[in-house]
């Protein structure tokens, strides 16, 4: 039983790391600040979610579990706020979003 749990934990944490890595790669590869936000958005949704899911499987203490879930709840409220603030600030500063027809 604990072997299955350990395997599930490692898969979740491994997959979370992959999504964070790909999100970071997106920060480097995508063309402008607006499209890079999408890459950053991956790290704090599925990336963080899978890491927390992996940690949840290793705890038997409900207080620790509640705190882990609260991390996700607070992330779900704060991360879109910061993404939106960043996009709005860039727009107000006069940055034009990059598109295919006008690079």
């Amino acid at each position, binding site marked *: 039983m604990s072997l299955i749990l350990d395997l599930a934990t490692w898969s979740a944490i491994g997959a979370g790391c992959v999504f964070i890595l790909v999100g970071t790669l997106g920060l480097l590869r995508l*063309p402008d600040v607006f499209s890079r936000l999408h890459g950053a*958005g991956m790290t704090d949704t599925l990336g963080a979610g899978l890491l927390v899911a992996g940690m949840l499987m290793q705890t038997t203490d409900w207080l620790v579990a509640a705190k882990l879930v609260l991390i996700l709840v607070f992330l779900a409220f704060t991360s879109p706020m910061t993404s939106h603030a960043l996009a709005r600030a860039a727009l107000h500063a006069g940055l034009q979003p990059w598109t295919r027809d006008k690079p």
Partner: protein
Amino acid sequence: MGRTVSLAVVMALLWLALSGHFEPWLLGLGVASAVLVAWIARRLEAVDHEGHPLHLAPRGLGYWPWLAAEIVKANVDVARTILSSPASVDPAVFRVKAGQKDELGLVIHANSITLTPGTVTMDVEPDGWLTVHALTPATRAGVESGEMDRRVSRFVGEA
């Protein structure tokens, strides 16, 4: 008044979950601080349907799992876009009309769009027009299909 009481109860439960103390003296202090915060929030007139939207919780049980599934799907899509050739990146900025009348519903809708990778809400206008930045034509089509709009309307009780 009911909303203030429920805010105090939620605060006290949050305090309990974060502290893990069950001794009567500390429990009392936790409850006292929760009541104090709820009282201050009431004085600030922050305890309304926006500041403490507990009435949404039951219908949220239907909306949040759907949103979580959408976030997983969108994550896989964006990961594929980033890893594939740069030619698949075709960002667009477009405007879409949100059906929600209430500001709370608009904010939930805009935040849900931003939380889904591949789309970011850049601007929200009071009359319900959202300016959205999409990474690919597929993510743009996802927003324009209006499914999220319908589900948010149902979630906040406007449909």
